[in-house]
């Protein structure tokens, strides 16, 4: 069976900065992939290429063996690859609940014209998801009233509502209070297991990476330079020196 995602020789430069330098990468179903690397090392660019937001100059991206290099985000999402953003992308004039409802309605690809939004989706599923990310108390408040950490959660929850095969999360715990991070990751991972969603997340917190990832890749200057189990990667000397700055 083909890998869930694999890329061949992806190359993209912004002026003189090479953001993706011949990346060969693969991700199997069921993995929990953590991506580490300094700012500007190309982590988000790689996500943007895989989700169709940016087009690489060279190379190809495959999702379940299908070439998606030239597809736009919309089509790739429909194939089952959802994402959340480093800067949460919400509908700021809608309530928290409505944001999730629009997501749930979008999943079917067909939007009703006359049935009320709340009635065209499964309300139990919405409640369940609200509960999961701890936003039930604030469900009827406008999403713009949420603090940054909860905006992040809502952003992840909106992606999750699509029931994707793969969920890519760009720094899901940044902006979340550090004592809440573990609880949040634990619930998220639990939800992903329940739905059998493969996860790929960018994360800076070593504790979180070692605890929740089954595999870690380290990024530097548009290249993958370490790839393996959390123990291997986080203990390797070069990663400690270059990325974690602890050696």
């Amino acid at each position, binding site marked *: 069976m083909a890998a869930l995602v694999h890329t061949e020789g992806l190359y993209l430069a912004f002026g003189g900065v090479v953001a993706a330098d011949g990346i060969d990468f693969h991700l199997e179903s069921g993995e929990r992939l953590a991506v580490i690397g300094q700012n500007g090392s190309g982590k988000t660019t790689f996500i943007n290429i895989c989700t169709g937001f940016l087009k690489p100059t060279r190379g190809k991206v495959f999702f379940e063996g299908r070439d998606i290099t030239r597809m736009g985000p919309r089509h790739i999402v429909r194939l089952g690859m959802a994402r959340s953003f480093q800067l949460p992308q919400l509908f700021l004039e*809608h309530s928290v609940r409505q944001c999730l409802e629009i997501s749930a309605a979008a999943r079917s690809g067909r939007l009703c014209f006359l049935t009320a939004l709340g009635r065209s989706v499964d309300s139990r599923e919405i409640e369940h998801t609200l509960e999961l990310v701890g936003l039930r108390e604030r469900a009827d408040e406008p999403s713009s009233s949420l603090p940054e950490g909860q905006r992040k959660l809502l952003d992840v929850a909106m992606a999750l509502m699509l029931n994707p095969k793969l969920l890519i999360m760009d720094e899901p715990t940044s902006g979340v209070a550090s004592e809440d991070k573990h609880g949040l990751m634990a619930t998220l991972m639990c939800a992903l297991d329940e739905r059998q969603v493969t996860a790929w997340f960018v994360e800076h917190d070593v504790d979180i990476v070692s605890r929740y990832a089954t595999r870690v890749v380290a990024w530097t200057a548009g290249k993958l330079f370490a790839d393996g189990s959390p123990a291997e990667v986080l203990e390797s000397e070069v990663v400690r020196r270059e990325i974690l700055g602890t050696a």
Partner: protein
Amino acid sequence: MSRLLDLRLLTVAGSLLCLVLGLAFPWSKTPLIVGLCYGIAALGVAAMVRAGQVSFGHAMYACVAGYTVAFLARAWPQLDGMLLIMGGIGTSLIAGAVIGVFVVRYRGIFFGMLNLAFCMVLYSVIGKVYDVTGGTDGLRINRPTVLGIAFERDGFETALLIGTLGVAVVLGVLVQRYFQSASGEALAGIKTNETRLEYLGLSARKILWNGYVFSAGIVGVSGAMFALVQGLVTPDIGSWLRSGEFVFITILGGSGHAIGAFLGAAVFELVKLFAAAYMTGIWQLLLGATLIIVILVAPQGIVGLLLQKSAASKGGGGH
């Protein structure tokens, strides 16, 4: 729930008021119908405002529908008024579908100006092809039968008033339901976050196109009714000034709820009537001042003010 009830009551009260006024003072029928037509048109424009887009050319759909009514009525004088209106709506929907393909690619000022451009092209063409359209003199429309009944002038106006009122209420309900449906909420999502829409697998253009065609059809309804009540169509029905008035009413009334369009139209017509009676020379000044006050005091329009108030009283646990 109390908030919805209030607006429902307001709708019923407003409709009754229109009817009573129209029946008690026959001279008020025409201004009432015209006001309702403006309200219907603003309803269409409001759908675009929900998506964060302001069209300065929507009068072209009233124009398309109005001229369709005139052409049909002249070609087949025996055609019923209802069929004429249907024909007008049909052509405005088709025009909206075609022009929509181009304009939904643009946002903000480009969307507004592109609509204006289409509107002005139509306006000048109609003014020039005198043989077909009667140029700036326009086309006269003989009074058609309504549902097979031939009316005298007064009866015809009463029938039109009742018909327009009915259509206004039905369209208001329809538009409000659309606003609250998945499509309508996604349309409002265009205003705040197109990136997210795309990453939910939705096409912002498709959603906007749907809304655009819908709004063109609604403005078409107003144009067709307007043509019938006037018994005449001139290019002015599609002038950019008219488009501006629709936008004016939409902003005045607010796009938070469908009833806003009619509240805006009522205020607009009242101010115009008042100004025509007492301040003939400076009626534009009065309108302008009204708009400035509304924008400063209630940026969400009259309906925004109403919703805010009822939300506040609900939140305070009051009555």
